């Protein structure tokens, strides 16, 4: 097959095989993807650990999670932006990670194609659904809501 680059070496990572194209025909896609994993990973450490701390450590933790808890959080635009960023970055980071794994282990072109088609479909559905949920959320769906906007 193609040459094997030294693992995790920035200057040469563009020569890692990307869809089986040869060296001269390659774009910098794999380099940007490699860089994106590191940048998004750093942001996700803060976003995800913050999310876990607020939802599982503070107050009643998991026992306090219900519709009212979500409504209370998304009444604050900070948490809307937080969750939106987390959703997009996590799906892109996780999707790109799975793409790498498919490239590594699925040997037949057909298998790789269909697995990636499935991955892209799933990621797209989740990102679109999650984004719509954050922006169209209606806290007053709960008739017993104590939020001031619902009174």
């Amino acid at each position, binding site marked *: 097959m193609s040459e094997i680059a030294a*693992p*995790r*070496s*920035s200057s040469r990572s563009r020569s890692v095989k990307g869809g089986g194209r040869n060296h001269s025909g390659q774009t910098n896609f794999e380099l940007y993807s490699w860089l994106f994993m*590191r940048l998004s*990973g*750093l942001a*996700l*450490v803060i976003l*995800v*650990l913050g999310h*876990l701390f607020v939802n*599982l*450590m503070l107050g*009643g*933790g*998991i*026992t306090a*999670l*219900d*519709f*009212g808890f*979500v*409504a209370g959080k998304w009444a604050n635009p900070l948490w809307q932006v937080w969750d939106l960023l987390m*959703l997009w970055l*996590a*799906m892109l980071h*996780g*999707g790109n*990670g*799975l793409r790498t*794994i498919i490239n590594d282990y699925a040997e037949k072109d057909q298998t790789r194609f269909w697995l990636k088609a499935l991955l892209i479909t*799933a990621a797209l559905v*989740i990102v679109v*659904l*999650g984004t*719509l*949920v954050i922006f*169209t*959320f*209606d806290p007053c*769906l*709960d008739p017993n809501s104590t939020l001031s906007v619902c009174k």
Partner: protein
Amino acid sequence: MPSKPAGTLYRGREGMWSWVAHRITGVGIFFFLLVHVLDTALVRVSPHAYNEVIGTYKNPIVGLLEVGLVAAILFHAFNGIRLILIDFWAKGPRYQRQLMIGVGVIWVVLFVPFVIRHLTHVFGG
């Protein structure tokens, strides 16, 4: 230079195993994320539907699975920072082993308080 046969500097040592663990935890977290966005999407259906499904997260067995999830996330997060340091910090590759120990220490320091607090919630303290 090591006198061992070529390949053993990485293979079978912490470098390889942390790579394996990074992949496994990454895949696990990804599939949880798919489910978690779907269950959260139920807030658009009805408060009852959401509360019903989120109730399963409070079940003791699922509560233990959450401990596993957080264990995986903490490893993936700090091993990821270790990878960044190996890639971008000039001395990173030389200290990759010490960085691995650092990952373990931070993991324990964050994981232990979490387990105590979370299991107290789950098992009704």
